[in-house]
């Protein structure tokens, strides 16, 4: 029996930029994306199991931040310290939904740099589909969100809020927020791996960013905060998703839609940049 060993997968490495052969690059990207699904799942399961195996409260930890956050703002509102303006929802529900959605955004922004930094030594020593690292981070953000939905259901039941017809559309909204956060995170990753300033600044920037997003209060109509909230791309997404979920209108749909489209394009750009940058990062990041 002769085995035809002549037809083998040929891999070529040259100094040339991969962008010069866009067709080949694209097919490689999608091939790697597909090939990384099993590894991404396995890495996610690994990190998930490891995290909760050593903790007593286990998965409960996923619930605590939104509960604490909501409670804080409800308290501030009740005591009159915070003036939140008019809204068509009971305030605690408004805050809970806002916090949950904001969390999806914040987690998505931090995820790429976090997961790639943690995988530095693996990236520097073994050749595996690099997308797997990003996707395992995505899965973690998704999982955290799903767990927190329990809180959402609880709040709806408590306040007797019946989800309007538009509620299922909220899933698209969540997806859009997720993509936006991830896009920003991935675009920052190459620079963030080289210079640690980016990762450090990120937490700080995110907490500041929340102030001019309609997470726990409706935006004022004039002043600096109003201006910042207006140009903030996260705002329309959060407003639209919340309205779809609990109110049944879509006051900010057009801006949300535009943000979503731009996000998808830039997300692809971020993925491309990640791929092109990886060999250069491996050279210089050690590990």
């Amino acid at each position: 029996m002769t085995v035809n060993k002549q037809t083998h997968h040929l891999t070529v490495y040259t100094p040339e930029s991969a962008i010069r052969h866009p067709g080949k690059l694209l097919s490689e990207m999608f091939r790697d994306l597909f090939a990384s699904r099993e590894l991404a799942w396995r890495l996610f399961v690994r990190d998930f199991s490891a995290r909760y195996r050593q903790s007593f409260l286990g998965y409960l930890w996923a619930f605590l931040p939104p509960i604490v956050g909501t409670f804080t703002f409800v308290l501030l509102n009740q005591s009159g310290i915070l003036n939140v303006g008019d809204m068509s929802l009971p305030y605690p529900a408004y805050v809970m939904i806002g916090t949950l959605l904001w969390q999806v955004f914040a987690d998505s922004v931090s995820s790429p740099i976090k997961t790639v930094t943690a995988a530095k030594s693996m990236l520097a020593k073994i050749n595996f589909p690099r997308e797997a690292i990003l996707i395992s981070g995505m899965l973690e953000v998704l999982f955290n969100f799903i767990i927190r939905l329990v809180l959402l259901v609880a709040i709806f039941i408590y306040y007797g809020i019946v989800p309007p017809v538009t509620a299922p559309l909220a899933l698209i909204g969540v997806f859009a927020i997720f993509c936006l956060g991830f896009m920003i995170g991935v675009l920052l990753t190459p620079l963030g791996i080289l210079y640690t300033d980016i990762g450090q600044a990120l937490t700080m920037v995110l907490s500041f960013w929340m102030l001019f997003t309609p997470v726990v209060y409706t935006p004022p109509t004039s002043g600096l905060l109003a201006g910042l909230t207006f140009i903030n791309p996260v705002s329309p997404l959060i407003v639209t998703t919340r309205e779809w979920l609990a109110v049944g209108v879509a006051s900010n749909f057009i801006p949300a839609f535009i943000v979503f489209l731009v996000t998808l394009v830039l997300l692809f750009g971020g993925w491309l940049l990640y791929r092109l940058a990886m060999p250069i990062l491996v050279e210089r990041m050690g590990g």
Partner: protein
Amino acid sequence: MSDEVLIKVDGVSKKFCRSLKKSLWYGVKDIAKEAFGLSSGHDRLRPEEFWAVNDVSFEVKRGECLGLIGRNGAGKTTLLKMLNGLIKPDKGRIEMRGRVGALIALGAGFNPILTGRENIYVNGSVLGLTKQEVGEKIEEIIDFAEIGDFIDSPVQNYSSGMQIRLGFAVASTLKPDVLILDEVLAVGDANFQSKCFQRIGKIVESAAVIFVSHYAYQIKKMCDRVILLDHGIMVEDGEAGKVLETYQNSQPLQIRESLILRGDDVREVAIENITTKVSTGEFLEFDLIISMEKKAQCAQSYLNLVDGADIVHAQVVIPDLERLIPYGHNRYHIKIGPLFLATGRYSGNFMLYGSGGKTTLAHLRHCFNFEFLGVPNLGPVYYPPSTVTPLRHQDKLSRKLLNE
């Protein structure tokens, strides 16, 4: 060996930057260039850059094993990283045919909190094995690694030896067309090491292998051809024995600063008239000159013979020197042997202790060098001779066997 060329390296070069800050900044610029499709400037050295690999070319066919040797920093790991697709060359072209597997980082992806069994799946996945492939081989892997019941215990409980054996057991189930070995040929104790050699040997038969090692005996055992790298340049490419000899001869037995410590009562100490070349079974001789301010009792005296890496190949206790060393100028002729070392260059560390071993009369580090001609270095340090005499049939055992 077939005619199928699986690894083709053509005029490959790679530059690195010495300074971290500049390196990061160059990284930013390189990423930008890559993103915009510009490829110029790769062949020039920017400030603080140097060629880690410089114009290397070779081919490896299926069934062939190519050795890669050189001092630390010669560019071997950099070259392997390029073959593995982790970094891009700055000049030249690399062609790899088939599935590429590397035994470089064992236990990649391991999480210490997970059990050995769980980590096998993670590590296998990182190396490119599907869940099904790992599932089929898992019993074999656990068996090979000799972990026993610990397999369901968190890896953080494992010794580093166990972790490495597990990593090796998983990585060696790969059946690649191209195999890259970076100094990991065998791990664990002697028994386990022979299992490793056996496994690797099987893979080598059907793959094109490139192997980096610092151990000459491993290279000789595995490789037909060897490439010698020096500061990134391919200095020699040829038959294993010849290139290894060039490499070993080029290692200068650095006459490092020989350190001389003298006790308070010692005016002067030196070594003279050393035999510079010694063969198997012969003696090393030298003169010890020691000048004393006042007489002192030497309680202990040792001579260590060390190689270029400061590994002790022999420790000689010199009881004849445990005597009263009189005031004034003294000269002793010392004869060490017969010696049964491996071929190589050695240096001597000489120590004399007084008052029950608590004070140092003299401590001389690297005080002399000599060349030993014996058996090639196969790893161990001592190579005693042997003789074999056929016995006549009239011994008890033979008579007993004949009568049965």
